[in-house]
Every structure is written in C-alpha cells, then in structure tokens.
C-alpha cells in the first residue's frame, strides 16, 4: 500500500501565557494524499497557523504541550530529533510560503541568495549553480530573472510573494504549506498568484496546504476543504464542490453564507457573538454558543462523524 502523504493524528499544541494555557491546536486529525490541495479555513485565531507551526515544528518558547503524531510518507516526523528534522524534513519535504505582507524576506540579503539558499544548505550546491536554478524557478513563477540581484525592498508586494513562492518550490518538496498567500495583496495580484499556483499544481502535481480566511480565492484551487474552529477541525469535505455548495457543519454554513458572490443576490450573513477563548474553552461543542441549530446534545463534545460520501463533520446533527 502506498503511504499517505500526510497523516496527522491527535495533534495537540498548547501555549503557556500569563492568563493560562491556550489550547491552540486541540486533538487534530487529518489525512492527505499526494498531489492534493487542501484548504484549511477558519477565522483569525482559530488555530490554523498554530496547526501549521505544529506540523512544521516551528515552535515558540512558551510551548506547554506538544504531542500527537505527524506521519509524512510513513515516517513519524514528530519523533525525529531536531537535527535530523532540520536536515531531512525542513524544506526537503515540507516548505513554507509565508505572507509577503510580513517581513518574510531578509531586507539586507539579495533575494536571489535567499531563494537559492535551500539548495546551498541541503544539496551542498555552489552559490552560482544554486542561482542558476533560482533563475529557473523565477521564470516558472513569473519573476524577471534580473530580480535575483535585487533586495526585498526593491520588489512590489506581488513580486515578493512570487519570490517567496519560488523559494518554497526550489527544493522540490513533497508538500508546500501556504500561510495566507494572497492576503494583503490587491485583487489582480491575488488572481495572478492563484493562476501561478494552479499552473504549478497542474504541471508538477505539487501537493499544497493552504491556510486562509479568504474562502473565495482558494475555492477554485483546493480539492478539499478543512474547517477549523476554536482549535479543532469541525468539518472535512471530500470534494471541493460539496464543500463550497453544500457545507455540513452549521459553522461552515454560516461561513459560506458570509462570502459575497456576484452571480446571485443574497443577504450576507454574519455569525453573532465571538469565538470562545482558547484558554479553558467550553466542554461541549465549542460552537454551541453561537449556533443557530443548537439542541440539548450540544452540551457534550461531539465526535467526528464520517458520512457515506467520505465527508467528516464534528456535529451532533449528523449522528
């Protein structure tokens, strides 16, 4: 049997803060096949970035609990010691596309040197040879190759995002994780980047995980959608259409109803109230307080129900 690309089981990541323990990722389980594009959707603060940090082992100093298993192509990478994780997993197997809006590029090192750096570290390539490959990837993502000798501040937001994308692709990793790749970019640039990503997925069969709160832009790229709420996964769909047209979980339904569309006139909805604090979250269903379909079972925590069509949902309505 071919190993799954990624199998996450019972993943926990808690942070210590002065106010208490933040349960940012609380028992997440997730499967992913090679060549798939997975979108992790949720509002700010739902733990989606923490989930990525947990998978990539990019942990801050205040970690309280970090447990579970992340099996990548048959190897539990959580069990690897740090040095082996660094040399064998980081960027060789999983790479990260950070937000260009943030300072994802070092301001005092030439972009080309940063983009080609993974080859220099992991494949022991010379600087020149690495730059030749960087030029190759730049062409693929649509950045003029003379930008290699520029600094980050000499690039526009869109170009910067492409350069960061090029950096993630240069080492041909098994999995590319994109952390809100199109937020803080204008609509045209967003569309451009999405087209670049689509091309890469089509031509290279690259596997992606997107993290986003922007359902609209990722809808056409992702094969499956994963909805996170308050540190937990509440719904996993098996196809994109199912998910965008007919979401199961009341939270997903509300989320989709809040996305504006051009084709049909609809009243945009919002969800009353606020997500619960991740410090001592409610014991029952975490969405219960804001849910429009709440009933008495919701005071107990629902398990993940698997439906016949392959969908999974964490809601008592589907018992």
């Amino acid at each position, binding site marked *: 049997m071919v190993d799954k690309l990624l199998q996450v089981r019972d993943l926990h990541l808690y942070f210590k803060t002065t106010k208490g323990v933040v349960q940012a990722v609380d028992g997440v389980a997730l499967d992913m096949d090679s060549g798939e594009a997975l979108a992790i959707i949720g509002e700010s603060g739902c733990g989606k970035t923490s989930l990525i940090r947990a998978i990539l082992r990019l942990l801050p100093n205040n970690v309280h609990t970090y447990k579970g298993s992340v099996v990548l192509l048959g190897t539990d990478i959580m069990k690897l010691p740090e040095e082996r994780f660094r040399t064998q997993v980081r960027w060789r197997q999983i*790479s990260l596309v950070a*937000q260009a809006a943030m300072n994802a590029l*070092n301001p*005092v090192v030439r972009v080309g040197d940063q983009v080609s750096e993974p080859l220099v570290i992991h494949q022991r390539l010379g600087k020149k040879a690495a730059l030749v490959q960087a030029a190759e990837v730049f062409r693929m993502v649509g950045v003029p190759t003379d930008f290699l*000798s520029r600094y980050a501040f000499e690039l526009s937001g869109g170009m910067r995002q492409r350069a960061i994308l090029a950096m993630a692709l240069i080492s041909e990793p098994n999995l590319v994780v994109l952390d809100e790749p199109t937020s803080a970019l204008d609509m045209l640039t967003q569309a451009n980047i999405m087209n670049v990503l689509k091309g890469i997925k089509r031509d290279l069969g690259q596997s992606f995980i997107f993290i986003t709160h922007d359902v609209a832009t990722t809808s056409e790229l992702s094969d499956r959608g994963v909805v996170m709420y308050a540190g937990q996964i509440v719904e996993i769909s098996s196809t994109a259409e199912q998910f965008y047209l007919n979401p199961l979980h009341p939270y997903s339904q509300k989320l989709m109803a809040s996305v504006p569309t051009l084709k049909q006139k609809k009243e945009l909805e919002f969800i009353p109230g606020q997500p619960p604090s991740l410090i001592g979250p409610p014991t029952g269903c975490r969405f219960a307080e804001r849910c429009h379909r709440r009933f008495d079972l919701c005071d107990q925590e629902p398990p993940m129900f698997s439906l016949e069509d392959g969908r999974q949902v964490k809601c008592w309505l589907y018992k």
Partner: protein
Amino acid sequence: MAEESRTPPKAESAAGKWRVFSPAALRFARYTLIRGVALVVTVAIGVYIAVWIANMGGHVDEIRKAEIREAVGVSFRGNPAYRDLTPSEKRELMDAEIKRQVERLGLDKPFIGRSFAYLANALTLSLGRAERMSSDTGSKQVRSIILERLPATLMLFGTAQVLVFFVGLFIALFLSRRYGSFLDRLSVSLAPISAAPPWFYGIFLILIFAAVLGVLPYGGMLDAPTPKTTFGTVLNVVKHMILPLMAWLLSTVAISVYTWRTFFLIHSSEDYVELAKAKGLHSNAIERRYILRPALPTVITQFALTMIYAWQGAIITETVFSWPGLGRMLFQAIGMYEVPVIVGSVVIFAYLLAISVFLLDILYAMIDPRVKLGAKRA
C-alpha cells in the same frame, strides 16, 4: 544564463568616459562626497561656535588688554631707566607701548572680523602659539602640544571602544539567545549601572585596586623610571590602561548590552527568521545572517552615539586617571584661559568626531542596502 540577466544593459546616456565605473560605484562616490561636504560644514560651524565661546564672545580680548596694561605697568615701575621721567611722560610712553602690543596682537580690530580669521586658521590646523602651556618637549606650538597628547587618547579610547563593541555584542547575542533566563534578567536589572559616568567608577577602582590592594597604579601611562625594553614598556602601558578601561567598560557596556540585546530580540522575532528556520538553516547561520546582519545598522548607530560620548567623556576620565591625553590637556587649558589650546583641541575633537561619523556613514551604506545613495534606481 542567469549571470547575463543579473547585469541588464544600462542606458548609454551617461558621458562615455564614466562608463568604466559601474553606476553603483558612481552613486557610492557621490554619496561619500556629499557626506564629506556636509561633515566639513558641520565641523566649521562647530569650530566657529567654539571660537566664540572660548573667547567669551570677545570678552577674552578685554582680559588680554588688561593683562597687557598690567604687564607694561609692572615693567615700567621696575625699570630704573624710566625713574627720572615725569608721570605724564611715563604715561605717554606706557600708552604707546600698550598700543604697540595691542596692535601687534590685533586686539584693536573688532572681534567679529578676527573670528573668521580664527576659524580659517583653526580649520587649516594653523593653531598658533600657546600663551602659557607648553609641550613636554618645550614647544609653544599648539599643534605640537596637541599632537603630543593625541596618541595617548586614541590608544586608550580606541581600545575602550573596540572592547565595548565586541564585548557588548558578544554578551548581547548570548543573552538574546537566553531571553528570560536568570542571566538575562540579571543583566537587564543591572543596566542602570551605565547611569554613572566612567570617572565615577574610576574613583572607586583607584581606591580599591591602587590604594587598598596596591596591585595597579593610581594613574598615568608609564612608571618612572620607564622600563628599558620595548616589551617592558608595552606591558607597563597595558598595566596602566587596565583601570581606565575597566571604568569605561563598567559604565558603557551595561547599557550597550541592554539595547543591543533588545535589538537582537526584536530582530529574532521577524518573519524571515522563522522562515529561515523552516528552511532548515543551522541555528548559527540563522543568527549570523538573519539576526545579526539585519540588526547591524541599528547596532552601529547606537555604537556611533557611544563614540560621541567617548570623546566627551575623555576629558574627566583622563583627568581622574592622570592619563596624558587630549582630554586632560583640555581640562588644564580651560583652567588657564588658554584660548589657543582650547580652540585647538576643540578643532581636533571636531575632526575626530567628523572622521568617526564619516567612516560610520560609509560603513552604513555598505552594510545596509536600504540606505539611499541619493540617486533614483533603474
């Protein structure tokens, strides 16, 4: 093929003879020139202000005239050749002599006019002759008085600054790696040590190491008699430098460590540091390339500020340690209304400062590509 695309052909509109230089080099030269001119103007203004202050806005002229009158009076009273003259004849002769001396020194002309002559002389380092002080070799030339003292100052404070920079940087990096640890919290709480100036610690260090323990000299630069061998002399100077350097380090390292550690902490929470970690860089490489390197401009700025402080602090610190440098000389000159020496050392300090700032500016442009070099980009 990547190499070709890295150097795109530039427009050929610029004059042909300049084509041997790359545009970047030309831009850098222009930047350097502009910075240099700006600093020369700054130095000139600073020295001109010093000329006015040292002359008390021209009042020193009055003091000197009074001194001439007194000296002439004394010499007439004591001179037997004038004993037979009538008081009015004597007064006339005295007035003529006073007038001659005043004119010789140019004191009859308005100060404002002479102030510019002073400025021109000062900037060209024609520092004139001292009135009371003389160099150890007996010269009255202000330039020799100053040049004789300059090496001692450069040696002590050059060493001090280099020590502060590297010791501070090392400790700051060490602490930023251990943010929140006991050592880190200790050093943060010790930062107020820097509130007291170096000479303050100097007094206590002299008390402890020279007076009580008797292991290090009270001050000065060399023992008398001086050691015979060169090596012995070097060791002797080093021995005399220990206490001033300790005082200097005590006073300046704490605050440098505190600020630099904070810079490093800020820079290590940048997104590119996290991305570098995700890329699989070794932690040493991350520290060097992604924390130290981007933080360097801020570190250098802070270092430049301590450098300015160093030239100022030299005055009292050298006095406390009897260090035969420029600072102590200036201290003595101020006490003696020795205007030519005061102005002369201000000029030298101004030049030292300007040269330091100039070098830092160039360094800045080299380490930080974001420093605008004054030309629009292609």
